[in-house]
C-alpha cells in the first residue's frame, strides 16, 4: 500500500514547471516520529484520493521554531522562521495545510510579521472543505455508532478558535461524538505544549497526560480522536499506562477518515 502514495516535492514540481495548489507542511513529528508518520501517510492518502494537487518541501522543510520560541529562545525561533520563510517565498507559496497545530499556529500567526504571509489551514479544516466541495466522500462504515471523543489541541482550539472542523468530520463518520468534562475553550492540555514534550515534567502529584486520559476514559469513549501528533503521543502513553490499549484507541481524525475509506 505504502508504495502507492504520491508525494511530490516542491523541487520536483518546479523542475517540471508545475505549481501545486497547496503545500502540505509535514512538520518534524510528521516526518520523523513513527506514530506521527502514520498520520502523515493517512492524510496523504486522502489527498491522493481527492486528487489534490499538492506538494511537500521534503528536505527543504525545517522546524518552524515553535518549541524554541515557547522555551524562550526567540533568537533560534526567528532564525528558523526566516530560513523557512525564505524557502516558502522562493517557491511563491500561497496556501499551506498542516497536520500539526503547532506548525499551524506558528506559520499562521507568527510568520506574517517576519515576512511570511500565507493562507494556513489545519488538515481537519482542509478535509472538511474537500468534503464540502464533493472531492472526498466519506461513509461511516466501520465507525458507525462508535463512541468517539475529540481532544482539542490547545494551539488549534483555544489558540486559534478551531473547534468545529474536527468535530464535523467525526460526525460525518456517523459516530457518536461525546465530549469530555473539559472541552473546547476549556479543554485540558495534553501536557506536551510549551516545549514540555522534550523534557521531564516538574515535580507534581500526577502527569498531565494521565489527567487528560482519565477525562477521556470518563467519557466512556472507545476512540480518542486527536488533531495533533504531540497530543496523540501523550494520550497514547496515557492510555498505555492505564493499561487500556486494547479497549481505547487514540487516532488522528485523518486516520479515522482514511481507515473508514479503507485507504
Amino acid at each position, binding site marked *: 500500500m505504502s508504495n502507492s502514495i504520491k508525494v511530490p516535492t516542491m523541487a520536483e514540481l518546479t523542475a517540471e514547471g508545475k505549481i501545486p495548489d497547496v503545500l502540505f507542511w509535514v512538520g518534524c513529528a510528521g516526518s520523523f516520529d513513527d506514530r506521527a508518520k502514520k498520520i502523515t501517510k493517512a492524510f496523504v492518502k486522502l489527498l491522493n484520493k481527492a486528487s489534490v494537487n499538492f506538494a511537500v518541501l521534503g528536505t527543504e522543510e525545517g522546524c518552524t521554531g515553535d518549541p524554541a520560541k515557547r522555551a*524562550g529562545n526567540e533568537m533560534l525561533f526567528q532564525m528558523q522562521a526566516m530560513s523557512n520563510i525564505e524557502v516558502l517565498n522562493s517557491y511563491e507559496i500561497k496556501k499551506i495545510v498542516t497536520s500539526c497545530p503547532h506548525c499551524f*499556529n506558528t506559520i499562521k*500567526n507568527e510568520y506574517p510579521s517576519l515576512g511570511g504571509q500565507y493562507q494556513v489551514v489545519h488538515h481537519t479544516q482542509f478535509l472538511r472543505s474537500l468534503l464540502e466541495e464533493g472531492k472526498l466522500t466519506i461513509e461511516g462504515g466501520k465507525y458507525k455508532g462508535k463512541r468517539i471523543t475529540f481532544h482539542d489541541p490547545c494551539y488549534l482550539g*483555544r*489558540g486559534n478558535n478551531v473547534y468545529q472542523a474536527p468535530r464535523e468530520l467525526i460526525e460525518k463518520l456517523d459516530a457518536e461524538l461525546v465530549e469530555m468534562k473539559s472541552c473546547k475553550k476549556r479543554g*485540558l492540555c495534553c*501536557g506536551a505544549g510549551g*516545549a514540555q514534550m522534550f523534557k521531564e515534567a*516538574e515535580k507534581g502529584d500526577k502527569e498531565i497526560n494521565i489527567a487528560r486520559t482519565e477525562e477521556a476514559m470518563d467519557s466512556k469513549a472507545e476512540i480518542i480522536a486527536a488533531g495533533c501528533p504531540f497530543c496523540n503521543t501523550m494520550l497514547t502513553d496515557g492510555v498505555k499506562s492505564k493499561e487500556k490499549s486494547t479497549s481505547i484507541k487514540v487516532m488522528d481524525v485523518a486516520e479515522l477518515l482514511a481507515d473508514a475509506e479503507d485507504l
Partner: protein
Amino acid sequence: MNYVSQIVFALVLIAGIGYFAANLKRLIRNIRLGRDLERTDRKPERWKTMILVALGQQKMVVRPIAGILHIIVYVGFIIINIEVIEIIIDGLFGTHRVLSFLGGFYDFLIGSFEILALLVIVSVVIFWIRRNIIKLRRFLFSEMKGWPKSDANIILYFEVVLMVLFLTMNAADYSLQQLGSEHYQQAGAFPVSQYLSNLITPLGESSLILIERSAWWLHIVGILIFLNYLYYSKHLHILLAFPNTWFSDLNPLGQMNNMESVTSEVKLMMDPEADPYAMPEEGDEQDVAKFGASDVGDLNWVQLMNAYSCTECGRCTSECPASQTGKKLSPRKIMMDTRDRLEEVGKNIDANNGVFKEDGKQLLDDYITREELWACTTCNACVEACPVNINPLSIIVDMRRFLVMEQSAAPMELNNMMTNIENNAAPWPYNQMDRLNWRNE
C-alpha cells in the same frame, strides 16, 4: 451648626478623594515603570471587548454560581452608588434628600437600591461561606495565606457594613417621615428598610435622628475609606478591569509576540552583505535592552497593569494543567508576585526621592522560581479563564526568554532540543536529509 457639618463634610470629602488621587498617581507611575507597548490599534474592537468583558461580565458567567452572585454585587454596587451623588449634594449644601423632587421616579430609585442592597448582602454572605466554610480549593493555595485571605474577607465585611448602614439610614428616615419630623419630608419607597423601621420607630424622634445622622455619616465616610482601601487591595479590579480589558491582546491566543530587538539581530546574522563589525549609524545608537524579563521593569506596562487588575479569584490557577497536577506553578501567583514586587519597587522609589535604589532583589528567584516557569505548557487555559483578560502566560514566557537568552539557563533536555533544531532543523537528532524518508517506508 449646619454650616459646621457642611464644612466638615467638605473637608472629609476633599481628604478622601485627595488621598485616593495621590495613590492613583502612584499607581500610574508604577505601571509606567514597564516597557513601552503600543496597544491603541483596532479601537472599535477594544471598546467592544471592554463593553462585553468588563461592563458586560461576559467571562464571569462561565462559572454560573460565582458569576451570577458577582453580577448582583457588581450591579448593586454601581447602581447604589448613584445614591452617593445625592449624599454628596446633601452634605455640601445642607439639604436633605435633594433629589426627591423627582417624585415617583425617586421612589422607584430608592426602592430598587433597597432591593439591590438586600441582594448584595445575601450574595456577599454566600461569598463569605464559599471562602471560609465550604473552602473551595482555589481559595486555599499557598499564595492565598495571610494578607490575601484577610483582604478578601475585609472586602466582604466592608460591603455588608455599607449596605447595612444604607438600609439603617433609610429605616430611620422612614420612621421620621412617619412621625412627621421636621426636615424629613415624605420621599422615597422603602421596600426593605420599612421592616427595620417598624422595629426602631418606638425609640422616639431624637434617637431616630441620631441613628439616621450616624448611619448617613458612617455610610459616606465608609465609602471614602473603601475608595482608599482599593489601592492596598486586590479590590482595585473594580476600576482597572475597564482599562485592562480595553488594552487586552486582541490577537489569537496562540500568537506570541515576535521580539523586534531579536528580529534586527537575526536579519543582520542572516544577511550575507552585512558587516558584523560595522559601527552603528549615527542616531541609531540605543541602549540594547536585555532580552526577556528578570524584574518588573523588564515587563511591559500592560503586564504591570494586569498585575494590579488581578483580584486573585484563581480561575486561572484552577484551569491550569500544571497546577491541577500538583506542580508548583500557579498563574495567579505569577500575577500576585509581579504586583508585590512592583509595589516594593514603587515604595523604594518613594523612599529614595524618586530614584530606585538597588535592593539586590528581583522578580526572578526572589519571587517567582524557575521551577514554576518551566512547568508551564503555554496552553493558554489561564488566559482564557481570566474574567478581565489578564495574561499570566506572557510574563512566564518573557521570564523564560531571560533565562534562555541572557543566562543560557534552560533545563538540559531543552538545551538538547534547541541544539538539535540548530544543527538539523528538528527537535530530535535526525538528519534533515532524512526528512522525506517516510515517503518510501
